[in-house]
């Protein structure tokens, strides 16, 4: 009972957050300066009629929402407009149908562009996160266990330094080093590989993935190490650890059966909260390594003033982070009996 209420609450909350992001996403692009149509369709050769035609095509001729013709500059419009015929409603309706508009730059549907990119980002972030968490947890564990020894101080300094590295700069440095050592300098696969057998292609992708994943891992492992260290230090000074020792359990048994799971609990929460930050890493790393993911899509869209893509990519990233957060919450409720039992 309690558990279901908890789960329902979490799911409901995630839904509400997504709704908030949808609305934020819509209004951001209308409130801030730069009418998309004028910014995107800036070709001076176009005639006024042609621009108008494009505005119609992108739905920019309709009022933003009831009572507002446009939001920047604020132009009060009629409140009697059919609410179904406003940009906001059309935006929501299109989204529900899986439509995010058409790219100003390539004239392709934004959904198609992003769908290709999404999996590349998940592949990169997934590999990087898993490695960072694994390394962080293991080293953090050692640091806590051997607290106040040189192992501990070494791990601490390494993680503080890793934390301080700007992601993109580390990427650049590694790229500089890698390009001098025969590693691919960007992209996800070597051109002309599509006809090769699967294993060869996978190997090629792995070679391309090496540097971006390494960057990712280095930057994020420091933080996980610090968290694991302090979390395990807390757990190891709890009374139940002393009880376990008093029972005659060996050091290893105490660590394995009593400390690790308890210490992982706060880590799960932090990983969830961190997912938002990890997307910042994706934008930077994909830009440096030309990795064709959502982050690069954002970078390109910004430089090309391709607002539909920017809008779509931001929405997708936000939703992905919210959903991952939800998963982490659900995982936490599974791991900690205090959440799911009455």
């Amino acid at each position, binding site marked *: 009972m309690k558990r279901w209420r908890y789960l329902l609450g979490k799911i409901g909350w995630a839904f509400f957050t997504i709704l908030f992001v949808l609305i934020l996403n819509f209004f951001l692009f209308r409130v801030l300066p730069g009418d998309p149509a004028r910014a995107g369709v800036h070709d001076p050769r176009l005639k006024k009629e042609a621009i108008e035609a494009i505005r119609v095509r992108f739905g920019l001729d309709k009022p933003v929402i009831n009572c507002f013709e446009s939001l920047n500059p604020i132009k009060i419009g009629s409140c009697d407009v059919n609410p179904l015929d406003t940009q906001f409603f059309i935006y929501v309706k299109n989204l529900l149908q899986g439509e995010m508009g058409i790219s100003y730059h390539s004239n392709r549907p934004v959904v198609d562009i992003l769908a290709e990119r999404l999996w590349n980002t998940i592949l990169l972030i997934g590999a990087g996160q898993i490695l960072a968490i694994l390394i962080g947890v293991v080293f953090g564990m050692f640091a806590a266990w051997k607290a106040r020894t040189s192992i501990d101080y070494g791990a601490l300094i390494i993680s503080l330094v890793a934390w301080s590295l700007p992601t993109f700069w580390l990427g650049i440095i590694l790229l500089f080093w890698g390009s001098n050592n025969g590693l691919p300098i960007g992209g996800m696969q070597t051109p002309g590989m599509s006809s090769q057998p699967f294993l060869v292609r996978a190997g090629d992708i792995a070679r391309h993935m090496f540097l971006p994943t390494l960057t990712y891992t280095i930057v994020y492992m420091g933080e996980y190490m610090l968290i694991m260290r302090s979390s395990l230090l807390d757990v190891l000074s709890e009374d139940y650890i002393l009880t376990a*020792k008093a029972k005659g359990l060996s050091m290893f048994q105490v660590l394995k059966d009593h400390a690790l799971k308890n210490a992982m609990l706060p880590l799960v929460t932090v990983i969830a909260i961190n997912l938002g930050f990890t997307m910042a890493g994706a934008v930077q790393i994909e830009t440096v390594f030309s990795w064709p993911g959502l982050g690069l899509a954002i970078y390109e869209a910004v430089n090309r003033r391709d607002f539909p893509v920017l809008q779509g990519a931001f929405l997708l990233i936000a939703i992905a982070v919210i959903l991952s957060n939800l998963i982490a919450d659900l995982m936490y409720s599974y791991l900690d009996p205090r959440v799911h039992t009455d």
Partner: protein
Amino acid sequence: MTDLVTSPAPLPTSRLTDFWRVFRRNKMGLVGLFMLITIVFVAVFAHVIAPYDPSATHDVASSDIYNPPSAAHWIGTDDAGQDVFTNFIFGARVSLIVGFFAAFISVFIGGVLGIVAGFFGGRVENILMRFTDIMLVIPDLPLMVVIVALTKKPSLLNIIFVIGLLGWTTTARIVRSQTLAVKSRKFVLRARAIGAGNRHIIRHHILPLVMPILVVNAVLVVSLAILNESTLAFLGLGDPTAISWGQMLNYAFGRGAMSTGAWWALVTPGVGIVWVVLGLTLFGHGLEQVLNPRLETHHLMRPRPIVKHEATGKPLRHATRQRVPSEAPILIEVDNLSISYLTENKPPARAVENVSFTLREGELMGLVGESGCGKTTLMLGLLRLLPAAGQIVDGEVWFGDTELTALTDDEMEAVRWKGISIVFQGAMNALNPVRTVGDQIAEAIVKHNPLMKGKALEARVSELLDLVGISPEHKKHFPHQYSGGMRQRAMIAMALACNPKVVIADEPTTALDVMIQAQVLELLDSLRKKLGLSIIFVTHDLGVVAEMCDSVLVMYGGVTAEYSDVDTIYNTARHPYTQELLKAFPDLSQPDKRLASIPGYPPRLDDLPAGCRFAPRCPLAFERCHIEQPEIHQLSERHFASCHLVEKRV
């Protein structure tokens, strides 16, 4: 665990000098501070330090571009033929300005929101924190990118505002939870009780305790702001007129530094960012350790080797062996056990000194003393479970024919629980919250009897729970689902899991209500009779001891004050401390007795008096007591006291 008793310390100096005195010892913090001071110095005096004027226009020849380091350009030139070193120095200015101002905005918003939400609670809190939760999951850099991209011309001011206005979420969360924690503390309730209003409470009671955490967080926020600014600039969203380190990297990376091999143009600005951010991080880490100190010790740290005849600083006085004669065989014999806590920069704290006692089969011994008298240390020492700073410095612990201090760690593990088990005070914390109670009991059984499994194991767990009056279906439940009394019963069941000969009960009823306390005591007493257990009962409650125990060891300041059978202790005590303690204890059977108190306070274990440890509070103390520590004198076959007054004149 090091229960040093506080007492008036020297008069405090100013808070700032206090802070600096502690911070000075933190190497990481000092290094960080040094890194910050240098970079701030560079930024402030950029015009003096920089070899060139960055704003000077000059013609650029293609031969000026990406020149390697030389005498004229110490770290080469960039894509526009400009001196990288000059740009680097002026870049420090931009980065620091953005970092500090943006962080100021973030910390201000986050701090105000956090305090308001935490302090006022209710609907305000709900709305604010829900909003913070939403902002926290929205990935901030992509949002910053979107916003900056949508503003037409990114200026430094815009960037400061965007970073500042989006960076407050973690601050708000941290400040809120700290405010909540402070608000629930009793001194805030006390402030309300004296009539203080919200403004007064926030100013005088909440802010001073939130400030340390806010300061540490602010340092982190500054470093995040600097990282965010450089990322935005690198992505081409910076102010093109303000050459920050991110902007330098943007130009170098986008304009062929990589392919020309101009590493200096790529490495230099990054080093600047790392320098500042690492400086801030180290400084923040140091601040954190000073402002929110925590003992970085835990129960799995390597125990100190047992080194005997050391660290006590003076020759040991061996008293006659103390024995309470009776027919039953002896189970435990502790002989002149001494335990010290070794801390840095301080003399060792002699927490337990020369304590001896014997425990016979079926005996219930009471170990009595006030907080900090070393009774818990003594018990942990028996099981060799002392915290990392604790060290057995002398004495022997005989358990049957085994001398426990001579065992290896592995051998000691086998003795624990199977030979001697322990019930700790506060069962809530002594049980692992994420494992079921039955599982934790079974674990102890399996450790010492690996052959027991499946049905037999289940049956044994049920039997144990039944023995302490818990219905066996509760074994699948977690500790938080038990009430306080049940948890303590479960701990007792666990202690009996391996049929130990001796159970140490360390204040097992202290946190419990009187009626539940009576239930637990009755349970212990009946188990003792049923199972023939020997029990060492650690407590400060003289009444409980009188009702249950056979023999009593009274400890004061780490030494034995008096040791005898229960009747002698309560009716013909010879040590002044025992006598005074009994006078101070309320007795319902003598309602007309006036309660006495012992003036003063127990000694600090790291600052013990030269003579008898009780002398400063003793009503009967004379000159010798302040100079010479009394030996333990045997007064009768079963009565020992350490006091000069009981010494037999030869």
